[in-house]
């Protein structure tokens, strides 16, 4: 199964401000009572996006100007908390193809990488510039250039970083590691016999 080579993501963006946005906020635990990931997209940021009666609260994702955005921008320590893959799955199924933040919590970052969602870090000042451009013109086209580690928008370019291992995997279309891990089976068995606790 050939995977898509993700050297860059181009699209419109939406800025969800805030630091330490945790995975409980990205997808509340009650929506994890499911045995597939199907349909998680509609519950993305549910409790900050909806009143308890199901009507919309003011939230960037509810703002019609940003409908159709495929690039999600936020603050520091995005995705902290639980290891639930339901969080990046909800982000992906909602329609996002890349996330830009000041930095990411580690498990969330890894989960995104495995799903082929680039997580790019940029400085607070640069994210603010992109957010300002979006506010002026919500149709602004943003290019998250994974290969060259920069973000281009409205005639500007700012540096962005994608951790080397994730960058390599995305750009070369090997972000889902399963094929390579399966290929390693003989080496795995050779290693396993050196560890007494793995004996059957």
């Amino acid at each position, binding site marked *: 199964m050939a995977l898509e080579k993700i050297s860059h993501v181009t699209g419109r963006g939406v800025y969800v401000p805030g*630091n*330490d946005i*945790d995975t*409980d*906020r990205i997808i*509340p*635990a*009650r929506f*994890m*009572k*499911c*045995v*597939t*990931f199907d349909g998680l997209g509609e519950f993305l940021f549910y*409790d*900050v996006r909806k009143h*308890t009666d199901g009507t919309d609260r003011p939230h960037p994702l509810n703002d019609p100007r940003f409908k159709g955005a495929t690039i999600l921008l936020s603050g*520091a*320590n995005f995705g*902290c*908390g*639980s*290891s*639930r*893959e*339901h969080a990046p799955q909800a982000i992906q199924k909602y329609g996002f193809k890349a996330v830009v933040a000041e*930095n990411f*919590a*580690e*498990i969330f970052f*890894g*989960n995104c990488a*495995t*799903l082929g969602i680039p997580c790019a870090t940029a400085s607070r000042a640069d994210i603010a510039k992109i957010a300002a451009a979006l506010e002026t013109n919500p149709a602004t086209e943003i290019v998250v250039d994974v290969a060259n580690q920069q973000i281009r928008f409205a005639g500007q370019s700012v540096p962005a970083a994608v*951790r*080397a*291992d*994730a960058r*390599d*995997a995305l750009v*070369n279309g*090997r972000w*889902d*590691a*399963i094929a*390579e*891990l*399966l290929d*390693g*089976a003989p*080496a*795995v068995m050779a*290693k*396993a016999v*050196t*560890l*007494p*606790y*793995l004996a*059957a």
Partner: protein
Amino acid sequence: MAKSLFEKVWDAHAVRTLANGQTQLLVGTHLIHEVTSPQAFGMLRDLGLKVAMPHRTFATVDHIVPTDQFVEPYSDPLAQAMMDELRKNCAEFNITFFDRATGKQGIVHIVGPEQGITQPGTTIACGDSHTSTHGAFGAVAFGIGTTQIRDVLATQTMALGKLKVRRINVNGRLGPGVYAKDVILHIIRVLGVNGGTGFAYEYGGEVFDRFTMEERMTVCNMSIEGGARAGYVNPDQTTFEYLKGRPYSPKAAAWDQAVAHWASFASDAGCHYDDVFTINAAEIEPTVTWGINPGQGISINERIPDPKTATAVDEKASIEEALAYMKLVPGAAIKGTKIDVAFLGSCTNGRLSDFQEVARFIKGRRVAAGVKAIAVPGSQIVALQCEKLGIDKVLAEAGFEWRAAGCSMCLAMNPDKLIGDQLCASSSNRNFKGRQGSTTGRTILMSPLMVAAAAVTGSVADAREVFSVSSN
């Protein structure tokens, strides 16, 4: 060359370097539960793959189990569906399942250690961020996502980048009424909720040397709350004594061999650490959170932060957001804040010693009128141990509801939830917005004895005063 435990365990389990530079790491023990595994089994079936090492894969059910209903079908059909799915997957792939009927069910991070499955010098993965708990035994344990669960099921390995190691020393002696929970809340407060990103935390120093295994587990459990994907304590005599005689511990001649092998994984004197941080135990007070992440903590006698005095713009905004959600007054004392619910339990503080300590002090006292108090043992074995010692009765007489084992109100995937903006004094690990099952529910994290103090006074209190704690 002198090596840290992390490096030794990593080297012992590193299979090869992958094309992107990550390591294919052998996962010795894979723990699974009902919430994050069903999709992984689905992916496995889609790819036509089998479980590589069913004998190194162990399952239990914890997140969704009702704590007041044992008989199936559960009143929540979604919970029942997850239960059925796990049962089906374990049967099909020949995986040991600590189901409720076995009497060994419980929170996955409590079951692994009590069965003796969690051992020093091993690698452990589980689709749950609190997998760091198992590091208490000198294992290197990672929380993983569902696609990685698929990877581990199919290959018993995962792709991972090597972590840096930060040694955290806690020296001296903790004061009376100061617990492991306070130690980790203090560490997270000082180093920040993302201070540990990219690191494994190695905890050591006199306080950890004296700690029991249960105390070490409480600290390692919340490593992820400080951003560290793994946290561990070097194995020592305390570790070996805990493991001796457990169902999955090596027996007879194999025991001595195992102990020698385990001891060899401890960090060497003079090994390299990427960072070292030292805390004086005497500085640590009973700690409580006031905000919406576990790093927003203060000691019980401090005042709630005031955004007006914040130094950074960022800090001001985060204090304002937190206080608006928590409905707390800037600059006020946290002590005396009225509570509605008291929750004892979770993978952080749902072990025998947690309930024992509460029972020791709460005997003869009563939960304040209007406070709902629940005590949820972390496993069926913990429940049984408590019941044999009469701890359940002491807690029930004090006004706590004694429930069946599970994650319960830590994340409220079962029927145990806050209602409206109820404020909960909780021995759990996360105070995120909506964490305890109500979108406006509020959580204050603290040690079990502090939860007990809050329960009997009806407000956030200093357990040392409430219970006249004079020695540990």
